[in-house]
């Protein structure tokens, strides 16, 4: 049973076809990776699924407990509530998601307050707990993120996203732009948290190794179209489409 679905999404940017009749489904607790090169439409797809972009045609549907319904029918306020409470979004650049001029604890607490929590002591304790969960020393609760490293900022974004207990998290290249050793730590952290919290995830990555490590299922995109889909290890070990074969064979072995 899908709890997120895309039905026949089409989006054009000028003469460029960013999404070309894209349909997919996601189940609870399932981790789906979308891979493809720059310009394949994978980020457009992610933003459309997350309600950040409106498609030219087609629907995104989500089950809030009473069956699948188009998110376009929620209205702006309803969509914002959904994005804040049941969904999360982790961006490639944490600087765009966080407020660098308020404390680390404040960045996490802000999301809790937006979700309706008003008890200062609770919020502070919860923020400290989440800092520890993403391996940031809780003693840094009152530090400003602008003094954090790139890896720490990404971990702070993860904490600020997960603190409200979303059931579905969208991730856009969550390890992009980080040093390899830092990437490994973030990946391991995401892997552990996703499993522990039973999250469903839609993950966009150009890194096949990331997809293999995290995803149950894989979608390969090219020119706005899904060219191949299946179990992650099956698609990567027995790719059928010419483009997937090229993607897989272009990876340098470690």
């Amino acid at each position, binding site marked *: 049973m899908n709890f997120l679905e895309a039905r026949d999404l089409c989006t054009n940017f000028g003469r460029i076809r960013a999404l070309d009749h894209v349909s997919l489904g996601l189940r609870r607790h399932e981790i789906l990776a979308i891979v493809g090169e720059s310009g394949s439409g994978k980020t457009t797809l992610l933003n459309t699924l997350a309600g950040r972009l409106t498609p030219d045609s087609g629907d995104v549907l989500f089950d809030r407990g009473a069956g699948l319904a188009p998110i376009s029918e929620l209205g702006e306020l309803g969509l914002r509530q959904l994005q804040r409470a049941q969904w999360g979004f982790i961006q490639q650049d944490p600087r765009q998601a966080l407020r660098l001029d308020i404390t680390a604890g404040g960045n996490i607490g802000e999301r809790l307050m937006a979700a309706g929590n008003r008890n200062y002591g609770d919020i502070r304790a919860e923020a400290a707990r989440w800092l520890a969960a993403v391996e940031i020393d809780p003693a840094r609760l009152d530090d400003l993120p602008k003094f954090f490293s790139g890896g720490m900022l990404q971990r702070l974004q993860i904490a600020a996203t997960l603190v409200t207990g979303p059931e579905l998290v969208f991730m856009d290249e969550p390890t992009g732009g980080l040093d390899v050793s830092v990437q490994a*730590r973030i*990946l*391991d952290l995401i892997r552990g948290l996703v499993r522990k919290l039973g999250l469903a995830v839609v993950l966009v990555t150009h890194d096949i190794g990331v997809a293999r490590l995290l995803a149950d*299922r894989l979608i390969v995109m090219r020119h706005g179209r899904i060219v191949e889909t299946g*179990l992650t290890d*099956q698609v990567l*070990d*027995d790719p*059928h489409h010419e483009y997937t*074969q090229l993607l897989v064979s272009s990876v340098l072995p470690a």
Partner: protein
Amino acid sequence: MTVLLDASGLAKTFLLHLQGGARLEVLRRTGITAQAGACIALSGPSGAGKSTLLRALYGNYLVDAGSILIRHDGAMVDIVTAPPEQILEIRRRTLGYVSQFLRAMPRVPALDIVAAGLLDRGAEPEAAHEAARAMLERLGIGRRLQNLPPATFSGGEQQRVNLARAFICDWPILLLDEPTASLDNANRDIVIAMMREAKAKGAALIGIFHDEFVRDAIADEILQLEPIGHDA
């Protein structure tokens, strides 16, 4: 005897787009039937399709034709047509696979890698870690190594972590691709003992064993595969 895996009419041709659309036919009308408590050894020269068959049985390669019925929760399920989530569920509880190489995860200690299978099946963390310790120790991976990520281990040590990860769970069906390839004789004998124990518990084993000593020690049946001849 209970049939746990029944595959028939399997066909697999690889279409290699990057090599000018070359076609490589590896399986044609291949079948295999595995019974509880018995081991089938896949045999044949390199290129005969042993690994391809094993991977197809796991759902890692897609076959072009045929069916692969797996006894899962008391019913026969065709892994060729099963949806991804059902294949994952079958792999979680029914169908185990020992590959030749460990795919090491960054930062994850050997102990956690080995315990993962039990945790996935809902075991308590403490019990799972205790079982993982015992399994690793049986395969000669001591406490000091258990707490390290295996990325820097030797090939033989990595393979033993890989084996521990597989053998910690009781699989109804276990697929093995050269499980003893990089092991010394003492560890090879331990793995033979583990495979015998799995059989005694009613598991069906299907494996590729280049080592004749291992094959003779564990196999009840040999399935001979031959490369498919190609007309010029």
